């Protein structure tokens, strides 16, 4: 009878513990950094401006107006027709007891939006007594004015 010989590789075993550790760490990183912002969920491509600065979070009242197109305007999370934007802003001011003088309208507009849509929002905000405006932008060099200049 042949004696059983233990094969040398049978004792080899892949230690997966450090691998799992790394995967756990990666998962924790992704879970903590995932961003479900309105901008991403509404597929808005913000314009680029390298002079843009981080928004001052100490401002007591900030109304975010997201404009994807003339037919897709949001005040906060609420979808509002462009024609009713003034009423929408007024409603938020009353709802949160905001002082128009201290309130900031944060415009998150798509970069290819015709300016007339943004102008309508500015006009309506001004009519509600709001004068402080913030244009959201990606902190990157602005797109050149023409293709020739960009070369």
């Amino acid at each position: 009878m042949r004696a059983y010989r233990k094969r040398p590789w049978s004792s080899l075993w892949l230690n997966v513990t450090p691998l799992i550790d790394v995967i756990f760490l990666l998962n924790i990183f992704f879970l903590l950094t995932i961003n479900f912002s309105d901008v991403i969920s509404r597929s808005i491509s913000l314009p680029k401006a390298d002079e843009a600065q981080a928004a001052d979070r100490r401002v007591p009242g900030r109304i975010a107006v997201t404009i994807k197109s003339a037919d897709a305007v949001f005040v906060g999370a609420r979808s509002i027709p462009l024609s009713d934007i003034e009423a929408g802003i007024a409603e938020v001011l009353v709802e949160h007891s905001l002082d128009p003088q201290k309130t900031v309208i944060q415009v998150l507009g798509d970069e290819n939006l015709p300016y007339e849509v943004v102008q309508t929002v500015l006009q309506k905000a001004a009519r509600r007594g709001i004068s402080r405006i913030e244009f959201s932008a990606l902190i990157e060099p602005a797109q050149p004015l023409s293709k020739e200049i960009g070369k």
Partner: protein
Amino acid sequence: MTSLIDCFFLLMIFFLLTIQFQAPEGVLQNRLPQTDAPGGAQLQQDVEIVKLRIKLAITGSEQPKIYLQERSIASYDELALYLGKLPDDILLVIEPEPKVPYKYVIGAYNTCLKAQRRNIVFAVRQG
């Protein structure tokens, strides 16, 4: 344990495929000019007004042209150059044509800020 690891692997693959390395967001601050509402910001009357007009080229090239007063400007750099020569107390009024893409309006405003201009307003239609 194996199923847990499988689950984490799937999560990791999901995150790796969906991650977007987007540039950080910031804001460009501004104040609106006078309004008919009480408390609206009043346009300063004691400063010279230089109108910065942005309009689309009529040629249909979809590329806008910038006019500083009547002077045609070819690039943001040129605009910054001219703005740098203006006196400090001048009020710039950005008055874009309705169809100008928003990104060019922001581009022009960004250039004004880069040229250290601080008196900038956006024209708002009356009514």
